[in-house]
């Protein structure tokens, strides 16, 4: 029986006809929709894979450096893991005792942190009541929402919830290095197989997409890493100069948070402001911290980013905000970080494919014109 009937009554030939009648872009949108639904179901795995891909990408230059001196890739990856383990142990023993001290101090004080912040906020609210009555009511509302009996902290800091939050983190600590190892070791082999499998006529376009994305993502990630490092150093130095506690730890937090466009500097500034508020129980150092972060942001926008990232990743501000929101909805914080380079790479890919299509149409037109002038019938595509 050739015409296999489906439950709904539509035959295979009906479906085929429907497929031919539908414009390609509708099919593409449907495929993208299905991919997005599947991706949203396995976000945790995708997040780990994305993190592993980015780490592999960053470390691939180190592996390439080993290969350049004649070491086999598999041996280079083992060597890199051994060196990284050695560096982590060495850093733990020698380089970062100050940071360790800061983290330990913060950890031991952590149970009292929420009370300290609440007391600091309430005393600030009382002191500023005469000058700024509107601040007082806002602060009291904030304290109730966050630290009250039904507040945010009471809801989220229960032991079982902390354990539930920690499980994926521990899993990621084990699985991400595992993925990184195999991505670093086997990626060129995968690429080789893809290239060998490709039809010769698609090779140049595929290589052009790979090369453009590689150059773009490489520039973006290297620039982003350098940008975050600079912001982290500036924040650490600034906080140390204005006498805020835990400058190294807060600098690292600010640098890492800076990965997320727009929101990152706000997160870094908020955390540092809370520490300043706890330390001095006054709004003046908080103002200093805000001025410091504004200055860093200004310096970052005007000098560091143009120098480090340049115009490699350029998205319209509206598209950037939409990317951040959709990225956050689908993949959380990872979606916010990697949404921007992903959308830019997609934009570039579409541009290259459109150019390829335009060129093929142009070539076809020229061939038809030549055949027409020679008096031969045009060759119709099969």
């Amino acid at each position, binding site marked *: 029986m050739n015409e296999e009937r489906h439950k709904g009554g539509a035959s295979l030939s009906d479906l085929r006809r429907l497929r031919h009648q539908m414009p390609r872009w509708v099919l593409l949108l449907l495929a993208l929709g299905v991919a997005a639904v599947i991706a949203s179901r396995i976000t945790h795995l995708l997040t780990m894979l994305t993190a592993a891909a980015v780490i592999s990408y960053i470390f691939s230059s180190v592996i*390439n*450096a080993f*290969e*350049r*001196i*004649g*070491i*086999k*890739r598999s*041996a280079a990856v083992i060597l890199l893991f051994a060196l990284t383990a050695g560096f982590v142990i060495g850093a733990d023993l020698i380089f970062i005792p100050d940071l360790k001290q800061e983290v330990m101090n913060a950890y031991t004080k952590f149970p009292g942190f929420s009370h300290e912040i609440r007391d600091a906020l309430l005393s600030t609210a009382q002191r500023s009541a005469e000058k700024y009555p509107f601040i007082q009511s806002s602060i009291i509302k904030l304290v109730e929402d966050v630290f009250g009996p039904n507040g945010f902290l009471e809801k989220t800091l229960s032991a079982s919830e902390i354990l539930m939050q920690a499980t994926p983190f521990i899993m990621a600590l084990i699985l991400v290095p595992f993925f990184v190892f195999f991505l670093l070791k086997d990626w060129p082999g995968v*690429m*080789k197989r893809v*290239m*060998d499998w*490709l039809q*010769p*006529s698609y*090779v*140049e*376009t595929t*290589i*052009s997409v*790979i*090369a*453009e994305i590689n*150059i773009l993502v490489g520039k973006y990630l290297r620039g982003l890493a350098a940008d975050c490092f600079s912001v982290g150093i500036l924040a650490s130095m600034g906080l140390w100069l204005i006498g805020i506690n835990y400058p190294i730890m807060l600098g690292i937090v600010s640098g890492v948070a800076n990965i997320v466009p727009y929101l990152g500097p706000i997160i870094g500034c908020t955390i540092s402001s809370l520490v300043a508020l706890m330390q001095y129980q006054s709004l003046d150092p908080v103002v200093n911290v805000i001025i410091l972060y504004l200055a860093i942001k200004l310096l970052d926008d005007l000098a560091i980013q143009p120098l480090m990232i340049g115009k490699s990743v350029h998205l319209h501000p509206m598209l950037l905000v939409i990317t951040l929101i959709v990225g956050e909805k689908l993949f959380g914080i990872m979606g916010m970080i990697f949404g921007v380079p992903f959308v830019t790479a997609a934009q570039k890919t579409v541009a290259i494919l459109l150019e390829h299509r335009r*060129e093929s149409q142009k*070539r076809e037109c*020229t*061939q038809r014109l030549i055949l027409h002038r020679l008096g031969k019938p045009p060759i119709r595509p099969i």
Partner: protein
Amino acid sequence: MNGVESFSMVLNSKMARKYFTWALDTTREFHLRTISDVSLFKGLSRKLLRKLLIDLIEKKYSAGDAIFHEGESGKAVYVVLEGSVKIIKKTNSENKTLAVLGPGSHFGELALIGQCSRFATAIAEKDSLLLIMYKSYFDDLIRGNSAISSRILLNLAEILSNYIHRDQPS
């Protein structure tokens, strides 16, 4: 000689070959010898040639596969690592073989200069392994490195001048 090159020499020494064979990339060493003969890369250091070998894409073509066709817009230059490639030009509905290229040869170099159309068709004569360098990668490589860019551009000028002299009637 810098640190990397001297370390590389140590790695390639007899002792290293004896005890660290498992860690040494012998296939790449063989390909390195092949591309060091390519006229486009003449005068480049071994370190840079290794970089080229790592960053460029390898592809196997079966005998009879068309690598590119005459008139297509060129975006990449090809280096023959293994096998052989036939370059064909269509003249008056006749196919004329311009050259048969073996390991260590390159073709499609006009793509590096601008958005040139392919002058001829390239077909794999035997099963071949080619190294493909995309134009953007070439631009990225020579940007900011005057030593490399001047070396490759000089080689390119020499190749083009050879073409002109070859095509001139004696």
